[in-house]
């Protein structure tokens, strides 16, 4: 089959719509993850999701419902328990470990198809049904809508919590809202790149964007753009050359971060030379 025919097949089309919606949500939510230095929380939520997905598979349900329940639960727990920076890492770490242990138990109890575990860990976007695409797209667009309505308060609370509180914002409420957004974004990103590679969509594009611009809105759109390009080209290379789509997306997103850092280093050296 030629690339053209492959790209026209329904399963690639489904994947295209899914990665588009997910990349946009992950890019913008990732900006706040990087700004708030909550990469560890994002990491933990993904791993907690693994337990949820494994549990759902054990019960014979679709993994995404287990992911939603566990990721949202973990997000709210982290948001509630780790309100202050001091104890956040401990809360996150304990939540993460407890859930991973549970995931191991579920997997050991489940004697069936190992592929289910594999796709939770590493993502499996090719072959998803229209129904699954619809759910993933709806969740992603919901995240985008909420972020577009709350980005200013989220920014404010992320850079100066006390001043934001004095202006009538609720740090706890917004922190919980953000953890819920992060949890849903993690769930949809796991559909594409899996639990282990969730950073490729959630952190790498935003980290690259933050290196490239110091304007918050610019960085948000840039993160969405980098995530989108990584996802589109990752899907295309996966279909054209072969290999897991999640590998290609991860490679491209990591490469964009590397390039951003190199470009920034070159630029700062050049400006130092001008000054000298």
């Amino acid at each position, binding site marked *: 089959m030629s690339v053209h025919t492959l790209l026209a097949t329904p399963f690639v089309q489904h994947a295209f719509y899914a990665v588009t919606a997910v990349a946009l949500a992950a890019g913008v939510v990732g900006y706040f993850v990087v700004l708030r230095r909550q990469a560890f929380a994002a990491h933990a939520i993904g791993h907690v999701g693994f337990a949820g997905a494994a549990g759902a598979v054990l019960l014979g349900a679709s993994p995404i419902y287990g992911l939603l329940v566990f990721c949202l639960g973990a997000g709210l727990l982290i948001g509630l328990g780790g309100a202050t920076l001091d104890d956040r890492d401990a809360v996150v770490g304990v939540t993460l470990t407890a859930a991973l242990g549970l995931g191991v138990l579920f997997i050991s109890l489940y004697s069936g198809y190992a592929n289910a575990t594999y796709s939770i860990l590493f993502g499996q976007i090719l072959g998803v049904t229209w129904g699954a695409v619809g759910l993933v797209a709806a969740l992603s667009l919901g995240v985008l809508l909420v972020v577009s309505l709350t980005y*200013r308060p989220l920014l404010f609370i992320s*850079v100066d919590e006390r001043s934001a509180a004095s202006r009538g914002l609720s740090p706890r409420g917004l922190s919980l809202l953000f953890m819920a957004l992060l949890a849903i974004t993690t769930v949809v990103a796991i559909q594409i790149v899996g639990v282990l590679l969730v950073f490729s969509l959630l952190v790498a594009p935003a980290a690259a964007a933050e290196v490239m611009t110091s*304007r918050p809105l610019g960085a948000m759109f840039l993160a969405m753009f980098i995530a989108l390009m990584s996802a589109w080209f990752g899907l295309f290379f996966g279909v054209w050359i072969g290999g897991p789509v999640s590998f290609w997306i991860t490679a491209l997103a990591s490469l964009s971060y590397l390039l951003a850092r190199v470009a920034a280093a070159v630029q700062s050296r050049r400006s130092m030379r001008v000054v000298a």
Partner: protein
Amino acid sequence: MSVLTMTNGAAVLGGRRIWGEATFAIEPGTITAVLGPNGAGKSTLLNIILGLVPLAEGTMHVLGEVPHRGNLHVGYMAQTRQADAVSTMTGRDFVGLGFDGPRFGWGHDRTKKEVVRQALALTGTTSFADQPLHSLSGGQRQRIALAHSTVFSPELLLLDEPLAALDLAAQVEIVDLIRSLRDSTGAAVVVVAHDLNPLSGIVDQVLWIARQHVRCGSVDEVVNEKVLSELYGQPIEIIVTPRGRRVIVGLEEELAHPHPHGHDHSHDGQHAHDSEVTHDHEHDHTHHVTTNEEHS
């Protein structure tokens, strides 16, 4: 009309009485220094004025109203901000959050650009406003934070330890800026500090909080041996240097450094406890309120 009046006010956090019987007024265009040991309840006072913590007893009016959160006539600058150390956000964007940061929803206020520009000009921060916060010096960041808190030209400006962690030159710079902001806006300014001397040239009145009591008056009325000895219940000596600096002797254990981290209510309560403990015991860190060495 006074910007702020408190009559027989008391602060209680988690069942612990922090201070009480506080009666004072703050007039427009004046600068009030809030002094006292860590945990005495200085930040709690700011939280009460901001409406974040309720006043446990007595009455209080801020600009004629009961204190409430989100009052645009009250500006507030926190001691520490998450953004300072790590954010690549520019000063201009941070000041912009002072304008529309609390707003939900779509849409953009066209006046924002101009209001932010004026706040930057007024604080002398225009030249470095487009650099990331993490690349600025401590003094530059404080200037940006002052622009952030004065974006709406507040009638009451609350500054929590604005001089903490600054070198002497930056302290002088920020004190000058506080004075010039007061002069240009006519706002009443309340400055929480751990050292009166850098501020002594601009301060109109002093609020000294210690051992659950609050004393208010001019510098001479409060910072004298009789009042401080009474307030602390122990003999206090004050040496005035030829250049007018005050060295307070007898409080070496009580007057400590500013908090290294942001203080919230629980911290305040905790420190209040600490200071009561250290009051009767030898404590290994001894500080002068007033010597210059501690700043260099």
